[in-house]
């Protein structure tokens, strides 16, 4: 049908959509330009040169926890790396603990044991409904700060001490030849992974079963021990000793670290527990009945039928919980744990005033972490999503 020329151009949907988009883009560009020119003028007025040159300058401040070599005379770039590593350290530990605790909670909620499931419900309802920041502050200020001073530290077998400086543990010190042990551990892990793959394939092909998991556990524990024994135990423990007002030797876990890790793990576990519960509940009852009808024992039903199907539902929200946890680790700034935000967007920003660069880099780092995790999740989803639905 030919278009009626009398219909005004403004009533043509395509033309209208083009006009709206053009207007929107123009408004966006004008606003962005306005903001950029203002920023440039404001920065000029404050005497701040933009750019990333400041990263090479000397930082001049101390950081209470550094995984890589760091001193006052190190550069801002180095401080950035220290902060980033601290964020990753506390996030990965908290992810580890929260996942384990979360799975336990999810299973406990579904337990036939009335007391256990009630206790899990109470835990989840209390933890979920109290702000995380408050929990972090509670652990740090109300529990860990009032601990006794090093002289009156809580003492466990003269090796572990808990005081207001943190948790003091013996530190393993490797002598020459110690390097063999971690190498053996690495080898054991690689070999176990290969073994499990091989056993799975063989079972699919021939139906013969191989106790791959027990063997793997034996390998991972046995091989490093063997390496230690062969090299003659080249390791000794640096045991902390009270000298004056503080401990010497050993290693100290900062109270900030304990509080943050504890609060993050406990908080995320409550949410993960709910995810796990909904995942397990999503497995159709008929599946379990079918497995029992085939003669599987309860343990095998769980391992071969329930868990694989539940994991498909659990994994996506689980990864997004982990993502939230990484972002929540930025709350470290309130108790002074030297994470990325504290070191970089806090101290460095205050010293240099490079607001635009620092905030954008910080956001970019978190964005990258998010994108990497969600990319992994998408790949997992693609691999395990139910096909044909």
């Amino acid at each position: 049908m030919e278009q009626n020329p009398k219909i005004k151009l403004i009533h043509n949907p395509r033309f209208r959509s083009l006009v709206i988009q053009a207007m929107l883009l123009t408004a966006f560009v004008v606003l962005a330009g306005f903001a950029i020119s203002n920023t440039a003028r404001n920065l000029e007025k404050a005497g701040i040169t933009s750019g990333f040159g400041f990263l090479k300058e000397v930082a001049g401040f101390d950081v209470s926890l550094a995984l890589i070599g760091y001193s006052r005379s190190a550069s801002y770039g180095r401080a950035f790396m220290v902060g980033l590593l601290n964020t990753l350290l506390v996030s990965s530990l908290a992810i580890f603990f929260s996942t384990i605790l979360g799975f336990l909670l999810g299973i406990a909620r579904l337990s036939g044991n009335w007391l256990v499931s009630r206790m899990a419900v109470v835990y989840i309802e209390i933890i979920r409904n109290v702000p995380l920041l408050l929990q972090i502050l509670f652990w740090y200020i109300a529990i860990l700060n009032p601990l006794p001073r090093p002289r009156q530290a809580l003492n466990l077998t003269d090796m572990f001490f808990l005081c207001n400086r943190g948790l003091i543990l013996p530190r393993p010190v490797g002598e020459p030849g110690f390097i063999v042990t971690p190498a053996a551990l690495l080898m054991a892990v690689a070999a176990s992974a290969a073994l499990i793959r091989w056993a799975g394939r063989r079972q699919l092909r021939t139906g013969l079963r191989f106790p791959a998991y027990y063997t793997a556990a034996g390998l991972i524990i046995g091989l490093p021990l063997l390496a230690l024994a062969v090299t003659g135990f080249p390791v000794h423990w640096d045991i902390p000793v009270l000298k004056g007002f503080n401990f010497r030797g050993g290693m100290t876990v900062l109270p900030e670290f304990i509080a943050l890790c504890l609060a993050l793990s406990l908080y995320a576990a409550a949410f993960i527990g709910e995810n796990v519960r909904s995942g397990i509940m999503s497995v159709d009852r008929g599946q379990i009945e079918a497995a029992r009808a085939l003669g599987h024992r309860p343990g095998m039903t769980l391992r071969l039928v329930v868990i694989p199907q539940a994991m498909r539902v659990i994994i996506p929200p689980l990864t997004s919980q982990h993502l939230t946890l990484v972002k929540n680790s930025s709350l470290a700034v309130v108790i002074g744990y030297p994470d990325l935000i504290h070191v970089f967007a806090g101290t460095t920003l205050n010293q240099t005033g490079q607001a635009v660069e620092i905030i954008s880099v910080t956001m970019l780092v978190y964005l990258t972490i998010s994108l990497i995790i969600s990319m992994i999740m998408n790949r997992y989803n693609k691999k395990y999503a139910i096909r044909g639905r």
Partner: protein
Amino acid sequence: MTVKWIPGPDLPPPSLETGVWGWLKKNLFSSVPNTVLTLLGIFFIVATVPPFVRWAFLNATWLGETREACTCMAEDAPGACWVFIKVRLGMFMYGFYPEAERWRVNLTLLFFALGMLPILLHDRLARGKAETGLAVLSAIIVFMLFGGIAGSVAALFFLGPFGLSRTDFSGLFAAADGRRIRRAGPLLSGVLVCVAAVRFAESGAGSIAASVTLLLMFGTLIRKASVRTWQWIFLFCIYPFIAYHLLMGDAFGLPFVDTHMWGGMFLTLVIAGIGIATSLPIGILLALGRRSEMTAVRTLCVCFIELIRGVPLISVLFMASVMLPLFLPEGTQFNKLLRALIGVALFYAAYMAEVIRGGLQAMPKGQYEAAEALGLGYWRMMGLVILPQTLRLVIPGIVNTFLGLFKDTTLVAVIGLMDMLGIVKTALADTEWLGFPKEAYVFAAAVYWIFCFGMSRYSMYLEGRFQVKRR
């Protein structure tokens, strides 16, 4: 000849299978591992609950006004010092808001409650119950204005008929016809609110109070379909102005109270309320934009949502407090509270957009086609057909986001605002009251818990209500 077979009476079930013992056996001691778990659980409860109860209630100090009242706590029987909370309660609730002006905060919250109640309890609030609610609120107003004695008299007067009509004593009071008093309830409460308004007229807020009273009476007395519309208009158009002038002052003869004096639970509620009220509409627009067919609109929305969702709220707040002033022409003064509000609203709008997008995707295509077939344009199609169904579908997600927002208002303490947590921190630094962090944080946690738990229960109630309607 037939022999009639008479069955003997049934044996009672084994005593271990029924009653308390049966329940215990089934739920707690069904197998050896279960028994072990139960014993472990009991051990855990015994190890944690009694010490906490002893600390929080039995050994705690409730009475007194000074720190000395609490020092009698023995070392071996530690107890909480709730006196600290009692002394600081005003600060925890209102921050540094001048004590003489705190009635303004109360009045603002009261107006909010009045505005929200009919919406929140839509179908619970039948005619009679609406009157009950109004009577309770009137009693509270009287209590706040004229003190305890007048308040309890008013409560008796207003609530008596409702309480009595539900008990068997109502016959005793046949002379005082409960129904007639109930009819008079709204009128009387309106008169009382007017009295309150006149009282405030001395301090200059009379005009506001009187107009609000009229509006409220209008809204509660006329109960027709238009009332619901009116309620929303009141909440989103009239109420913000009233609240702004009431809280900030500097108008109608009220003294000016700057936002840096605001604090405590009051500030938390302000941030959460404004955050919720703004993030939902922005989120809806973003979600619509993300599903738009216009490439430029879609790209902008996707970029915004993904950028915000990928970063922590702290960094957004830092950006709002550090970078926002840089973007504006120099000399532009920018309120710190406003900056935090912009950060919170934009951050949660992105999350809200994703929740609503989920609902939009779940909407069957037929609904769009039907709306188009009726000749509705884009906005009318969305507003009248698609969005009402979508929002109903995603209520749990929306409430979850609200809960997250409420909990995350605590983060504004990081950029120096005195919300509940910020106030707790300053109160702990007071040299006169050193050493009570546990009490302060347990109290704050309890307050937050009540709010969040209530909200999640309310969401369940809403879900149930809408599910019934859909069937």
